[in-house]
């Protein structure tokens, strides 16, 4: 399931993030975080994970996704990888087609995270750069994605994806992974759709409507059947 979450960052947070990324951030070669096969395809810059700016940005992004109810409903997160930050510009401007490593080690907190879901949080406006599309190979075909700053794209970690070369300006983004309580993508999708439909019904009929109560119970029972904690 591909899902776009709008305005995950507020305007103020976006401004804060941008100033942190732009004022003396320590950028390192992105190949330092790539696995063996991906190294050959990766050509970008990444924010040093231990820098002060990186830690503040991580808190900011985690805080933002934590606020976002749609993120929870769609991801049903069990663990979230500490967010990373990248920049595509100049000569370091693309990341060829790859599949993310299945299990990655997150430093903060130190833990292994299975990458069920990939997340890209756009931090530059689409008109600030040319190229730099996130291209996802979906069973339905190829999705080319370029979102406004502050929006987040959520997509299965199992997909082959790439970032096309940036030919002008700089593409700034945060990326991270989620290990979900519900491992199967199809099951997650069904739960999300049910949750959204229930939201409409709860708004329209109220929480006390017996059919709403019953369906809510069904949602929880499906979650109980499928979730690992």
């Amino acid at each position: 399931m591909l899902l776009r979450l709008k305005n995950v960052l507020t305007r103020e947070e976006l401004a804060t993030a941008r100033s942190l990324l732009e004022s003396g951030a320590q950028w390192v070669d992105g190949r330092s975080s790539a696995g063996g096969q991906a190294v050959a395809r990766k050509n970008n810059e990444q924010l040093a994970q231990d820098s002060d700016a990186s830690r503040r940005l991580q808190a900011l992004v985690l805080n933002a996704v934590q606020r976002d109810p749609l993120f929870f409903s769609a991801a049903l997160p069990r663990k979230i990888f500490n967010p990373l930050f990248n920049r595509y510009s100049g000569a370091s401007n693309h990341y060829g087609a790859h599949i993310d490593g299945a299990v990655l080690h997150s430093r903060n907190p130190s833990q292994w995270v299975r990458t069920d879901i990939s997340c890209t949080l756009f931090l530059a406006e689409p008109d600030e750069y040319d190229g730099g599309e996130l291209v996802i190979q979906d069973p339905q075909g190829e999705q080319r994605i370029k979102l406004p700053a502050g929006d987040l794209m959520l997509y299965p970690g199992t997909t082959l994806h790439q970032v096309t070369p940036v030919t002008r300006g700089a593409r700034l983004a945060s990326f991270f992974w989620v290990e979900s309580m519900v491992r199967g993508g199809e099951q997650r999708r069904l739960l999300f759709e049910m949750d959204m439909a229930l939201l409409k019904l709860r708004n329209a009929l109220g929480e006390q409507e017996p059919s709403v109560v019953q369906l809510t119970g069904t949602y929880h029972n499906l979650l109980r059947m499928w979730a690992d904690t």
Partner: protein
Amino acid sequence: MRRQAALPLGALMLAASVSAWAQTTPQPKSGGTGADQVLPTVEVKASRENESKESFRATTTTIGKGNQELRDVPQSVTVITERLMSDRNLDDFRDVLRNTAGVTFQAGETGEEDIRLRGFSLGQAGDIYSDGMRDGTLYERDTFNVDRIDVLKGSASMLFGKGSTGGVVNQVSKQPFLTNQNEVSYTVGTGQDNRLTGDFNVVTGENAAFRLNAMVQDADNWGAEQKKQGVAPTFSWGIGTRDEFSVGLYYLESDGRPLYNHPWVINNGHIVETVPAKNYYGLASDHLNTSATYGTIAYTHRFDQNSQLKTQLRHGRYERDLLASAVGFCNGVTGNASQRAACPGQQIVRLDQVNDNTVLSRAPKGRIGVSDTTQLTSDYSGNFIWGGLKHELLTGVDFYQEDAKRNNAFTTGLTFPFTKVGTPNDGATVADTRGNPAFNTFDARDIGLYVQDMVSIAPTVKLLGGLRFDRFTASYQTPTGTSNERSDNLWSPRVGALYQPSNWASYYVSYGTSYNTSGDAYQFTPTFGNDQRTAANTPPEKSRNFEVGGKWDLFENRASLGVAAFYSEKYNERNLDPDTASTQQLLSGKRHAAGMEFNLAGRITPKWEVFFNHTWIPDAKIDESNQVLAANGGGAQVKGDRPGLTPKNSGSLWTTYLVMPKLRLGAGLTYRGEQNPEGSRAVTADSFVVADAMAEYTIDQTWSAKLYVSNLTDKLYADTLYRGFYAPGSPRRVQLTLKAAF
């Protein structure tokens, strides 16, 4: 503060336990504490085709051309959804407007022409639209094929061209959608009223659907009969895809007898209603037969990134044939010879003089007209980044051609018999000996080009600028062959600014202008010679509107609130009031109306729904006029007076509550403050409040039953006003509706 937001279950379960993932505890927002942090509302919008059926609240509108969020329109907009119309049995278009604040009615015109918004005429200049195209005047409109009605208040010639001094009303037709859904509804009510409607939507292919709306109604109305039938099939294909097409037909016929007016007596300047609202004193041979027939072809091409080009072509014919009785108290003292003979000595000046033997006079009123119109509109709306800024561009062209024939005083040779108060609906008839009508003809063409850009100069600030050019050409001809031609080139600007600090608040200021070409108001009286006042060859009248306001989403995004302050001014130099069809010189130069609008629509709680709108016009004045004060202090409004049909307060409230899972109760109030008729400064109609109530029971998934009582207290009030008479609001009516949705 927006708390207890409706949250997805997944979020409810997890939101409380997440902070362990973040290394640092989230920072509270400035000015708040950690406890103040509120989860944002998740808004899952009902799919658009269902919004109007399910809620009193609409979030988008097409009244600004294209399809816009209401919060992006820098003017007051009241939207009456299908659910509200269905709840309140608002079958007649005027009933919809009766429940819209700021709307008043001139009596005696019987058609749809003399509806006023903020005191300015709506119908005369063609401010009533259907799907963004001018709706034909003349006919009795019905809501059986209407999805929602948008009322945009204030000048908007930039979007619509001529007209729109008080605002415009747009009826949005029901469109096919991609779900099989059918609805049949039958209503039986007092006045031997029977109405059957059907709404059928059938999916015929992957992206194609057919929708059929049909209606038949037969009401006795204690003499003021009305028989209506309408059918509106529409087929759309490519729905929601890059190229969407639609072909539709519309036919509506209404045959009946109008309750033209009731007579009044005046007590200390106040109108006193004299006879029961339901009494019909017209002849059995009176009639008001109207029809509308039109076909529409529409094509929408969608580009990437929410850009689209929508083109519509419509050709239609609209007809009206009216022969009605204007009813008055027979004056046997100072009346003409026939009156003196019919009611010797009778002169009614007080209510206590009115009894069953009081003689009433009937004067024939005849109007007949036919209009053929062809319209083409093509609107492009697109979003793009240019110069580093986000632009929302709206541009288009529209073409309008009307060939009209009118005779607005077609009573040659007719004399109507007298009747008595005690014998309403007396069954008397008069043979129609008028022969063929002599017509004034009017051929008008208008081509308009417009462009508007809304630029986001900062994430929270949008600037709006628009300009429209119209070339209006018309030719007029009297039955005797006197003719005249006129053309105008007109520019209409519009500017505005929006400040949207959050996704639930929007604040705006706007300025727009409008004009009325004289051809509209006086199209059928191209008078020449010494009296140039009523000549059609007069420059357009101009108006402007300033507005400042705010729109908010409230109650966890279930409801919308709009508050605005406005100043509408008509400032042209023409010494005529184009808002009245009279040849009398009533108003001149300048007048204004200043006040506030309040609109609230949506759910306060999931079970409690509200629709409220209120217009407050504390300040309305004729600033310049050459109308001379009548010797007795009465007569028409003069400089310094408040314009007629402009009450200080008017409003409407409708609220329902789901008291049990299957039972919904509703109640409503409609209020209009005291007002003067147009052209009668010393006569005042009292304020009134009308109460309605409803109980709806859902029998099962398919069936529901509804009992609706309008005008609970059977209040007798002057709903529509003319300078010598009024027409009463509807008496108490009880209606039972059985509806099947399958």
